[in-house]
């Protein structure tokens, strides 16, 4: 079997290099950071380590779900702060939790089309900086106040003030709610848990495994391969740089997890903060180009991008998005699940990953939902998220798509089979999946 990879002029499209900052729990070590500054730090380090002249970049593409209000095109701010010369354009893309993968997808499409060859792709999220927002009534109040010219008019406006105007809108929770059905993401996970009969204990067990695997990956140095340490802005004298993702709980236990109350559906829900991903800050930077171009710059590519696919599904069951997208990506790369050495499915919720695994293995799901005659293929639990996932490492929403690609690429360097898959579920009912192949040296 010789699947045809994505390519340009006969040269496969590759992730030429990549690295990321340690991911930090929101409101924690990166609380003093600025979104563009954090992303620029990762981008700058990658440019330094690859020795690439940033003037040669076709464009900088940044995936970010919630750019700060003063950096609507955070990609451009990031690029300039990373030392990319001003003539190189930059833009920001958003596809919710897959924004980082969307940045790679843009680059791949552009390279295939011959519209540029060398791209810097960054996945970025600073959830610490998500704001509280004045509600509409308060906004209207301030607008009236600004328009009032006379003292009498101003007094009249003041009289219209109501305490309810002080109630803020919380960007974080509203951002995590699907406006088409009013479901916050955790509720969609509850729907999957019921549909696929995933018990609270199974979900907790999976969450515990995520922490244990992440800890092992950290201690063995597997995670350190992709991380550059960072001394956060606002650090005090004597503070050590952050070296690892700080969401990994070495002491996590089933007992501790069992004590947590359901967060989204009380009292009978199965999704807790313990078996969900954490709110996190992070940044991952990748260079996407053709293999020939990478080698011309003296780089040994990390991995070939075999295929990259997007799929839509029921917004209320958005957690199954990876199944639909993986089916497409595998078909496009003419590979089977059994060919995969490693699979990363973003751990938005333990119940959601477990539901995906069941859907992968279900012939019924394959027939009814994927239009196949059989199951997509059973995932080997040992090969699914072998380094732990977002439950332990955190899920900086815009960064995770790029982070998963980086992690799969690194895992492939030592795996038996050369193929790997990175997939995410996307709020609003979508999935994204990317098949990678180890690059021959």
């Amino acid at each position, binding site marked *: 079997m010789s699947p045809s990879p994505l390519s340009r002029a006969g040269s496969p499209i590759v992730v030429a290099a990549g690295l990321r900052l340690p991911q930090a729990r929101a409101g924690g070590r990166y609380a003093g950071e600025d979104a563009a500054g954090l992303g620029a730090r990762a981008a700058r380090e990658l440019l330094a380590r690859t*020795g690439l002249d940033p003037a040669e970049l076709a464009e900088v593409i940044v995936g970010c779900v919630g750019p700060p209000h003063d950096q609507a095109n955070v990609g451009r701010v990031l690029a300039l702060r990373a030392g990319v010369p001003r003539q190189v354009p930059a833009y920001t893309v958003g596809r919710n939790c897959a924004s980082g993968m969307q940045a790679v997808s843009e680059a791949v499409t552009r390279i295939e089309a011959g519209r540029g060859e060398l791209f810097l792709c960054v996945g970025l999220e600073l959830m610490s900086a998500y704001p509280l927002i004045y509600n509409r009534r308060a906004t209207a109040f301030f607008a009236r106040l600004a328009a009032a010219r006379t003292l009498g008019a101003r007094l009249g406006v003041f009289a219209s003030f109501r305490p309810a105007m002080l109630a803020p809108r919380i960007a974080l929770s509203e951002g995590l709610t699907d406006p088409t059905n009013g479901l916050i993401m955790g509720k969609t996970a509850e729907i999957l848990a019921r549909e696929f009969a995933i018990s609270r204990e199974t979900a907790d067990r999976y969450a515990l495994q995520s922490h244990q695997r992440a800890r092992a990956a950290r201690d063995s140095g597997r995670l350190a391969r992709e991380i550059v340490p960072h001394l956060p802005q606002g650090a005090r004298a004597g503070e050590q740089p952050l070296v690892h993702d700080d969401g990994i709980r070495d002491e996590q236990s089933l007992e501790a997890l069992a004590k947590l109350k359901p967060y989204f559906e009380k009292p009978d829900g199965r999704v807790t903060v313990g078996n969900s991903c954490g709110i996190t800050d992070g940044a991952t930077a990748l260079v996407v180009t053709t293999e020939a171009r990478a080698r011309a710059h003296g780089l040994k590519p990390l991995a070939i991008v075999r295929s990259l696919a997007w799929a839509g599904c029921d917004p209320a069951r958005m957690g199954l998005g990876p199944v639909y997208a993986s089916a497409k990506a595998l078909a496009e790369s003419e590979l089977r699940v059994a060919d995969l050495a490693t699979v990363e499915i973003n751990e938005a919720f333990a119940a959601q990953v477990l539901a995906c695994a069941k859907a992968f293995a279900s012939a019924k799901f394959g027939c009814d939902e994927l239009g196949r005659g059989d199951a997509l293929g059973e995932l080997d639990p040992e090969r699914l998220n072998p380094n732990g996932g977002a439950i332990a490492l955190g899920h900086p929403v815009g960064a995770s798509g790029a982070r998963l690609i980086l992690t799969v690429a690194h895992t492939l360097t030592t795996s038996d089979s050369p193929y790997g898959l990175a997939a995410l579920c996307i709020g609003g009912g979508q999935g994204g999946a990317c098949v990678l192949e180890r690059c021959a040296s």
Partner: protein
Amino acid sequence: MIDLSGLPLPPDAPPAGSCVRVTRPEPGLVVLALDPPHRSLAVFDAPLLRDLDLALTELESDAEMRALVITGREPLSFAAGADVKTIAAVREAEIAARFVRAGQQLFERIHRLSQTGGGRVRVVAAVGGPVPGGACEICLACDRIVLANHPKTRIGLPEVRLGIIPGWGGSQRLPRRIGVPAALGAILQGKLHVPYVAHKLGIVDRLAAPEDLVRIASAIALGKQPCARRERGAWSWLVDRNPLALALIRSQAKKQVLAETKGRYPAALEALDLVSRGPSTPLTRGLEREVDAVRRLATGSVAQSLISLFLLSEEAKRLGKRADGSSAPAIRRGGVIGAGVMGGAIASLMAESRIDVRLSDLSRDALGAAELAHRSDVAKALAKRRLERSQADLALDRFEVSGDLEGFARCDLVLEAVAERIEVKRKVFGELARRVRPDCLLATNTSSLSVTAIAEGLPHPERVVGVHFFNPVKKMPLVEIVRGRATSDETVARASAFALALGKTPVVVADVAGFLVNRILGPYLDEAVRLYEQGADPAAIDAAAVDFGMPMGPLELIDEVGLDIAAHAGSSLVAAYGARMRTSGLLTGLVAAKELGKKSGRGIWAWEKGKGGRARKAGLNPKLPKPSSSLDARLSRDELTDRMILAFVAEAARCLDERVVASERELDLASVFGTGFAPFEGGVWSHARRRGLAAIARRLGELAASPGVAQREGGRERYAACPALG
């Protein structure tokens, strides 16, 4: 007509009338632009004053004119003030006075045209870029000042720093404008202010974008746009003209000036007097006082020395150019290996100077400390408005850290500040050479190793150069550019341009032990230690040097730099130069006992924490060994001074003989900027010439034969005269 006779005329002086451009863009409005064809940036030299005179004569009879805008060739190019070279060339007090009167008369005529001065024309200055001294004073004579809001703009009256006073009405008009206390602050410190501060202090009335500068100034002059001038109002009577308040302010300011200048710099006291009396005396009388003050100061040795040093530091900028006058390519991305105090500070300075920098060290702690120090420096610059938020962000972004030697491939220069061991430095450069372009400068910040030796065996040794900073990096203005045997001219030019880009003054020196500065400091510092060992009072030793004009006593300086560093530097000098550099064993004993100076709390002196965490002297270190003889116990202050300063002078003379530095002038510059050698003397060699080379040679002979010197090994050699002393 003003009297310019006796003033030097530049050889390329353009014909009369060509230095000032007068245009009439609309009825009633006149725009007067300083545009001398023989200068890239206008200065008030004889031709410009002559043409300003002509232009004003024409305007004074222009009955149509009701609005006058005074501006420069371009919004960010006005004038650099009075021509410093003219002042330096004037040797007679009367001619200096004439130069002052010429400017005063011209500016006074502008003032009389203006509404403030009782005239019929609204005069508005529209200026930007550097606006120092005389350039600021012409503005002060106008009704309103509009300043270009741009990072390149700086305005102020820095004359005191050159040993003179603002003599074209500045000392009188500024206190009238902003009050005596603020004017004293501005003039005594001679600070050049950024636009925001200048506006806040009231030195200017309005800020405008450079592109809009002349348009807005014209509108204000024509009365189409309001522009209020902040009035002092009642404050003027309560403070500026209140004898009681003034007496208090004067005595406070005088105390401070004397503490800072030790009475060496008469200009500050003259300025204090002029400014504080300004508002309460009629302007004409005040202007006469300015003339008198300049007459006393301008041809004096202090002003001549300070002006000469200023011109020397300007001349040093030529080092950044190639022989054909073209500029050496700028360093845009640099690396620093070694995140100690020096390396960290150099990297931080590079980032602040808009150079991308990557700092590498094996120790994460050192990197973290360096990064935090950089962030704190940038935060301070932000707080003082030297940087805007966006620039501060970039200064932080530009500072990369690395635990290894990866990521240096695109560097134009990598500077090493690692341990002072040749094999370590060679290893670092060897590994770097494999990672960087062949034209990437490899700079060493070594202070005691040979650049030639470090370069040996490296590919492309022509790009290896010494770039020797002094501690504390951000404060010390001098950088020694050390030329090794293989170092190319291009490398020297690029390294000098690099130092200039960091705001430093480069001096090119030969690759000899200690280079220039540490070599001439060595015998001076050791002699101070010897004096103590031979019975002189340590407080008297330090006081003698400070009295002479050194910024601090030598024993205190040893504590400041660290006894370990001083001892190491001393021993490398002994190895290279033999007997005359032989050091007292005192320091090595203290170093072994971990008594390292300020950093460890005790060196020669004992130090305790004073105000603001600064170290304060608390007597002698009790562990200091007692004097071993009393040979020098009865030396007078002058004898103490000669023993130290002439050891310095004699070694400086040898450096001239050996061509360690190219010229006497550069030796002067390096001695002041590198060691703090009495600036009012104009540097070590100016001092030697003033005292007389023959007299110095004689005195050296006497010292060599004196018991405190003759009886110890190497003493006579230290005080041996050499050919440079005639």
